[in-house]
């Protein structure tokens, strides 16, 4: 598994500061009224960066054999594919045919 004789440790506090910085950046991205697509790209990008940092340095995946990394990455790819596989069934107008759209609440107090 781990390479023989590997006792060197990464600088964990550097990783901690990166994770903290990215978490603060994530919270700051939510505050301004950005387009949802841009917000999603930024947030997912930062979340994936944090996940990679945790896996590579805290879980020492970077120092393991490449085979293990391939095994670990596979389910993440399958999960992303699963989302896209489910989308066609849930985003088509056909699903909502026959469902009466609820009436918007109209504020009549000003009249």
């Amino acid at each position: 598994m781990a390479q023989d004789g590997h006792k060197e440790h990464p600088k964990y506090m550097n990783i901690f500061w990166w994770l903290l910085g990215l978490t603060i950046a994530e919270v700051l991205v939510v505050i301004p009224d950005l387009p949802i697509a841009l917000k999603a790209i930024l947030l997912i990008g930062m979340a994936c960066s944090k996940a990679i940092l945790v896996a590579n340095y805290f879980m020492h995946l970077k120092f393991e054999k490449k085979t293990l990394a391939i095994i670990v990455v596979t389910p993440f790819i399958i999960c992303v594919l699963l989302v896209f596989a489910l989308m066609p069934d849930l985003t088509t107008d056909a699903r909502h045919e026959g469902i009466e759209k609820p009436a918007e609440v109209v504020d009549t107090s000003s009249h």
Partner: protein
Amino acid sequence: MEHATTSDHIEDVYEPSLTPDSLGKLGMWIFLVGDTMSFGALLAAYAAVRAGAGIIGWVPPDEILGINLTAGMTFLLICSSVTMVKALESIQNGNVSRMCTFLGLTIAGGFIFLGLQAYEWYHLITHGLTLTGIPDHGLSGAAISGSTLFGPMFYAITGFHGMHVTGGVIYLIVILIHGVRGRYTAEFNHEVEIVGLYWHFVDLIWIMVFTFIYLL
């Protein structure tokens, strides 16, 4: 000379045989890969339900959930991951008491996280986020109608993660007891590394849950 070169090449191509240490690590990694699929399925279902509700309406989660509290919970889990790697680093350097201190801090982080999650759930339930409804903050009828599945999805995903944290805290307590009794040394410490893998995985999953459920 030629023979040596060939054997070097073979060693380079093939994985070394599994040792008792690496077997435990491999077992944990396989478990985590399976668990990733469980969380992945839940998050994929959440994404699909949300996309499906898009036509009718979906309440922005940050209008219902407290971002500041959960950002603090995220910070707490990151800190507990650091204390976990510091525990492993300590025992690999032969320092048992330092390892026990860091393991204790990691356990404390887990307990505080669970306490904050219980507080959050209590707060949300008393304010109307249940399995069948969401709080009414002057939202339109369309948004409320489209978001009726938010409650069940939220409690399923955060509850599943909370169960993992609970399991991790129990697992860490067992390892700490072994550590206090002097089981681990600079040469024999793979059990600490394996519990660390589990704990970092719990942190990694929370990073995803925080982004997908609370922020997006």
